[in-house]
């Protein structure tokens, strides 16, 4: 094992390539359904995907539009002219003998992503480019034979290529997570990580601290969760340090990640690298885009996480709330609508309720959909106002929130029905207070309080709440208790 001190002697440099499956109805070049998740093998394939003789690609305009939206989320430029090229290699899951991709003139150029880390800092990762391409099929090996499934062949992807601006596993995870949020919020992908809607290839090299040149890199391919991106980077850093400390070289190679063993292993070295014989694809005319057209499509991109963060920071939301709300786009949008139509305090109060609905771990495997009934925005505002004005205590507020998400009823209706309206009538509460103080069970607490042990007032207030079935205004109850003792 390498000790921490030795690790400290090295810096790591990471660049990430991310394949994003576009949320189109049909494939990139054919009319076949783009959703093959539940389909039997080779049932979502048409003659174009199958590579029959004489078949020609027909570019899916919806995929181009999604790439244009992705470009906005990445703060990139959209190329006025982009083209498709062919990348040749032979493999049974590649029906045409080439993958149609954008080698020379990608649609998305430059850009950057500001990814917030858990420690509150932010890493800025520049985007080199992102290009459109089609996915290959899938080959499954069984003993002495293999089976081909072409359902995935022709699925539209964009591959987002970052600059090597990442220098820690935590930053790698933060970047992957933020890319995921940007792409799902912008509607570019469905973001189903379990089904490989986003896959990350992590390129990592190490060099002694202060070295001017980067080390030889290894690429860990096909990671499909943020956690595995982080773990693979951690593992690969240690492995490379160990290698150098043993006096051995790092080999440029492709490595795979074993999630069960939590380690990387060599798949193929650069010496086996193929010559892809890239060439322009003459079957597909260039994609020519005018500024006005780009602007029109990008105008349909909804608010993205950086927007919400900026607004909410300014409004004084704390980081935990912001992070939790951003886990679900619909919650984020709801809270922002509430903030704009009422005020930050109301929005924060509603935000806290949503915080309880979501947990960060849920977001590891796919988009988070907070299941709620169709609740009108103003019901949330009314509910928060009721709590703010003391008409409901906070426990009652939680209960109404929960019920409201199930039924979609107005909070006043629910509060009445559940008999939760807070009693702030001094006379009514005074009667209960007297009853509690007279109860022999309270005798010890009363004695202690009189002796100056202020903590026990909580017990007495609790008794009042209990007797009032939770409806008493606790502040009022406390005041009345103090007056009497």
């Amino acid at each position: 094992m390498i000790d921490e001190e030795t690790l400290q002697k090295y810096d790591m440099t990471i660049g990430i390539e991310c394949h994003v499956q576009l949320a189109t109805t049909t494939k990139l070049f054919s009319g076949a359904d783009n959703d093959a998740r539940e389909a039997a093998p080779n049932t979502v394939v048409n003659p174009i995907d199958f590579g029959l003789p004489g078949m020609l690609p027909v570019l899916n305009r919806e995929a181009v539009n999604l790439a244009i939206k992705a470009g906005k989320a990445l703060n990139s430029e959209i190329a006025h002219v982009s083209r498709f090229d062919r990348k040749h290699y032979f493999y049974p899951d590649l029906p045409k003998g080439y993958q149609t991709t954008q080698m020379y003139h990608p649609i998305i150029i430059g850009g950057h992503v500001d990814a917030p880390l858990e420690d509150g800092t932010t890493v800025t990762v520049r985007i080199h480019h992102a290009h459109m391409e089609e996915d290959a099929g899938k080959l499954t090996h069984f003993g002495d034979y293999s089976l081909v499934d072409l359902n995935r062949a022709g699925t539209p992807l964009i591959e987002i290529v970052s600059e090597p601006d990442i220098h820690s596993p935590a930053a790698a995870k933060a970047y992957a997570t933020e890319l995921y949020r940007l792409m799902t919020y912008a509607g570019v992908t469905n973001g189903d990580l379990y089904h490989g809607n986003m896959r990350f290839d992590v390129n990592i090299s190490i060099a002694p601290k202060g070295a001017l040149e980067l080390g030889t890199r290894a690429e860990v391919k096909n990671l499909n969760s943020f956690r595995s991106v982080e773990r693979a980077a951690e593992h690969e850093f240690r492995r490379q340090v160990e290698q150098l400390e043993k006096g051995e070289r790092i080999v440029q190679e492709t490595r795979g990640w074993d999630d069960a063993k939590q380690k990387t292993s060599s798949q193929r070295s650069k010496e086996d690298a193929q010559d892809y014989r890239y060439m322009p694809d003459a079957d597909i005319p260039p994609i020519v885009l005018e500024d006005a057209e780009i602007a029109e499509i990008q105008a349909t991109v909804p608010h993205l996480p950086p927007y919400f963060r900026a607004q909410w920071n300014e409004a004084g939301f704390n980081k935990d709330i912001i992070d939790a709300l951003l886990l679900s786009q619909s919650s984020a949008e709801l809270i922002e609508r509430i903030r704009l139509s009422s005020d930050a305090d109301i929005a924060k109060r509603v935000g806290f309720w949503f915080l309880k609905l979501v947990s960060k771990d849920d977001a590891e495997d796919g988009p988070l959909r907070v299941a709620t009934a169709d609740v009108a925005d103003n019901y949330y505002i009314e509910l928060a106002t009721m709590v703010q004005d003391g008409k409901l205590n906070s426990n009652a507020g939680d209960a109404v929130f929960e019920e409201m998400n199930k039924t979609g009823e107005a909070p006043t209706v629910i509060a009445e029905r559940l008999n939760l309206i807070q009693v702030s009538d001094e006379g009514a509460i005074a009667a209960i207070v007297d009853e509690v103080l007279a109860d022999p069970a309270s005798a010890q607490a009363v004695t202690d309080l009189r002796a100056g042990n202020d903590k026990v007032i909580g017990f007495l207030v609790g008794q009042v709440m209990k007797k009032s079935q939770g409806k008493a205004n606790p502040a009022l109850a406390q005041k009345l208790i103090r007056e009497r003792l």
Partner: protein
Amino acid sequence: MSTIADFINKNARQNVLDALAKAKDNESYHALLSLTEARALERADAVDRGEITGRLAGVPFVVKDNFLAYGAPTTAASKMLESFNAPLQATAVEKLEAEGAICIGKANLDAFAHGGSTENSAFGPTKNAIDQTRVAGGSSGGSAVVTALDIVPFALGSDTGGSIRQPASFNGVVGVKPTYGTVSRYGVVAMASSTDTIGTFATNAADAALIMDIISGRDSKDMTTLPDFFATITEAPAPLKIGLIKEFMSPEVDQDVRDRVNEYADKLKTAGHQIDDVSLPIVSLTLAMYYIIVPAEISSNLARYDGIRYGRRSQGVQTLAQLYGRSRDEGFVTENKRRIMIGSYVLSSGFFDAYYLQAQKARTLLINEFNELFKTYDVLIGPVAPTPAFLLGENTGDPIKMYLADIMTVPASLAGLPAISVPAGTSTAGLPIGVQLMGQRRSDAMLLSLAESMEQK
């Protein structure tokens, strides 16, 4: 030779039976790889019952066997696709069928359309319609010969570097290579995506124009198709400025060929057109461009024939590499392999810039030279090929000599221009010789109207 009109308003079954009988009588030419007899007769009966109507109701035709069509396998004259039955039809075939035309068979070609003599067919060469010791030309040799032998009044072909024009010239029929993008390539086995065009053989220019009118047009299945522009012109064109390309008339070109082209030029002049000698200096480089760009595209387009999903799969292999290697070795002819090798080489890392990109830049220069000439001239003319049909086997041992025969047809292909081959008489030995008419992009109908106006002169 018969015209399309000879088949209209006749008994369709009889038309088809006659065509099939002629096809069988002429088996020795080996122009057809298969007959689609059962389907043809079914369709003929439907025409006779009035269920199928249209401008070509009951007219029999033949398609080159690189078109996907029902009724027989689509082999592309290769062992690779020997038993490949197409599950759908080429757009051009569909359009003809929609007008009532009846496909009776599939014509021989050089395997995957690689060649200029039809000698590269995996199933044996097609013989010239006029002299059986000579080549049919190619790669659409079979389509040219069935038209010249009067088996059918028209036949479809594909032209990537001269594959319609040259066999038309060798067999004495009209051959049309349209503007790139005029006819959908959907359903035609791809050779070189940037120069592949779909066209027709016919016995006269008016019939060719009718067929082009039917098969042309934008197709949502082929992104390179142009918006509809082809509109048949019936009246003779007003006096035109015509350039005779002098690089095509050098002493290396057969004397008979030059004589017939000069005579055609004289007739054009007599008809009131202006004829000038013009120069296209970059012509000397076009074969070099062509034999880099086209093999590069071929190596890519033929990558799908891997023995995995359809087509030939070698038996008894042990590894995936063997499966690919042996299936492709058995499925392709020597000329296919030669072009795949050249194409793979010029696309290799380190050579792409030096070969492929250079060739594409030179191609732009060629287009510019043509555009310069078209500022002054409406039409350019010259021979189609340097010689009439050569002897079977004469060039097979020398690929370079075979490639040189393409020198006058590849310029229009690389520039995407329409070019047609029209009969211009015969050599002293009685072999047909064609003249080539080239025009600006989208001038296809005008070229055909000019050819038609000259047919009686």
